[in-house]
């Protein structure tokens, strides 16, 4: 197991290096010189040369990449052109909001998608299967940003039930400890703020989680259908184990592997989906930071955010890989 983990980490390093190279090349290949774009039209040639020197743009590409890589390894992704703050600090400040949103979305998707999939798979062609398959199709076909807009229109606009933008009411809640608003206020014991935070997170989380919910439902269903044919299910039923117990103890546990795989794979979609959903709901996460960086052509901030997202995705996939072994003892790592 340990040697497998080490081997996987070693295998990930070249991928991460190549990712950083690719992201770096994107900036290089982009038309126009950042120095030209950022300085005003009145900047003289000396101003531009000066700026190029200051940002290191006058050096050969491989030197620039080397410097970029060494700095990045030391946790320095450069300085934002626009805000003149370190990119890393800006991203770290915004990251908890994105993680909070992603976690709640996944929870919603799991709570609705998995049971629905299990019931649908256990009783194919029943009414619950039809409901499930509708939810599945709905989930995978719904563009999350439109669903978000419609939620705002109906839930916030028409029924006036939940807030439509931001993360909390201004002035509510104690000082941040972890950066996770809801968690922080649970620690503070400020239940009003917790309630406030939850009311703000519901709509974006539903908009973001619907897609994964649909996919989870479909995967769970087919996975349960498959496991139902296995010998051990027949044995359990022949022994007289109750159907509910067979289903939730024997079948679901064995159907878990594809479900976890899908959660892992779909986390990428969820991450990039969060970029759009955050924009729709003005959620102050790293996704909306990326979009505002793009609008203001803040290249270091764009590269930094893209790298962070991708790195997060690589790490998540790595963890999922390791998780397999603990869930399914049949998987052996030492081959």
């Amino acid at each position, binding site marked *: 197991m340990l040697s497998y983990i080490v081997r996987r980490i070693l295998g990930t390093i070249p*991928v991460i290096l190549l990712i950083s190279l690719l992201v770096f090349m*994107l900036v290089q290949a982009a038309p126009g010189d950042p120095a030209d774009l950022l300085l005003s039209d009145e900047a003289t040639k000396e101003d531009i040369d000066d700026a190029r020197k200051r940002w290191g743009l006058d050096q050969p590409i491989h030197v620039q990449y080397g410097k970029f890589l060494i700095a990045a390894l030391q946790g320095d992704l450069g300085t934002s052109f626009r805000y003149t703050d370190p990119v890393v600090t800006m991203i770290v400040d915004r990251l908890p909001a994105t993680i909070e949103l992603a976690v709640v979305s996944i929870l919603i998707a799991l709570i609705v998608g998995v049971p629905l999939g299990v019931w649908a798979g256990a009783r194919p*062609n029943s009414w619950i299967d039809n409901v499930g398959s509708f939810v599945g199709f709905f989930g995978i076909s719904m*563009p999350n940003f*439109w669903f978000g807009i419609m939620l705002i229109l109906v839930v916030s606009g028409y029924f006036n039930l939940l807030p439509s933008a931001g993360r909390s009411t201004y002035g509510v809640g104690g000082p941040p400890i972890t950066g996770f608003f809801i968690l922080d206020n649970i620690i503070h014991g400020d239940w009003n703020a917790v309630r406030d935070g939850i009311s703000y997170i519901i709509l974006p989380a539903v908009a973001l989680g619907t897609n994964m919910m649909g996919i989870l439902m479909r995967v769970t269903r087919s996975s349960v259908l498959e496991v139902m044919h296995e010998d051990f299910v027949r044995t359990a039923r022949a022994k007289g184990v109750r159907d509910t117990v067979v289903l939730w103890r024997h079948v679901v546990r064995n159907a878990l592997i594809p479900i976890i795989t899908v959660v892992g794979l779909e986390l990428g979609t969820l991450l*990039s989906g969060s970029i759009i959903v955050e924009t729709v709901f003005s959620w102050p996460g790293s996704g909306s930071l990326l979009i505002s960086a793009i609008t203001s052509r803040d290249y270091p901030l*764009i590269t930094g955010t893209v790298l962070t997202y*991708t790195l997060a995705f690589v790490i998540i996939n790595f963890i999922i890989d390791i998780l397999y072994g603990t869930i399914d003892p049949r998987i052996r790592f030492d081959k």
Partner: protein
Amino acid sequence: MTNSALPTPDAQNVTTIDDAQSVMPDLPRRARILKTLRPWLKPKIVLGGTVVFMLVFIGIFAPVIAPYDPNGQNLINALRAPGWFSEPHFLGTDHVGRDILSRIIYGARISLVIAATVVVISGVIGIGLGAISGFFAGRTDFLIQKLVEVVWAFPPLLLAIAIMAFFGQSLLILIVALVVQRWIPYCRVAGGQALSLRTRDFVDAARSLGASNTRIITRHVLPNLIQAAMVIGTFAMATAIIAEASLSFLGLGVPPAIPTWGSMLADGRTYISTSWWLALFPGLCIFFTVLGINMLGDGMRDLFDPRLKRPGQGMG
């Protein structure tokens, strides 16, 4: 006796015996067509197919169907609510008085053209690389697999967003940005299939007859990949439509002058508090289009791969 009299009744009988249709020789033509069509007549395929067919129809005949110029502004008529049949603007107008219905109709065209182009290019690249990688194995396979690994390491859409952010808005760059990750599913399936096919007897047989690698790939490996490619392509079409709409919604899609569903939604979000119709109709179009395509893909997968829809024994 002249040659023209040759196809005698006898001769005809001889040919029908060899014919595959001799199993049902008396079946009228219509019944035969119905028999070949039957597996396709599943609700999912019919429904999904109808949606896709309507979309293609609307896309092709957009200039004929659309009641107004999609870019024709009329500020006096701005933000007019849907008039249904009582007013000239069936689905209302947007913030500069452009007819929503006409923009949706033209938007269908753009969505379809972009999605179809992306799917075809991705398919060609993915299947090509996959077939090569699976068939030759060794170092080529290793290189292609590394490329897949790196490109696939990016969260979907993020790479497209980054490309659009750095290279600016144009149709060509949009297509490149959408293809960049979409060829990978084809490549994986094609690679796996090619790997298993290369050891099969018919490939050995072809090789012993002196067939070249190119010939074996194009004549024996590729035809076996068509069904899988059709299913992947259908689903890729759905994701491409959503991705294009997402990018346009973020203002990173095609140039603003071209009406697309995504950019219409971006306007709709701005005017959400006053004019619901701006955001409702383009979104509905995306939703139903993607739903239809997904159903079609699902139905086709059931059809091509019966293993996936084993009827369960059920419980209770």
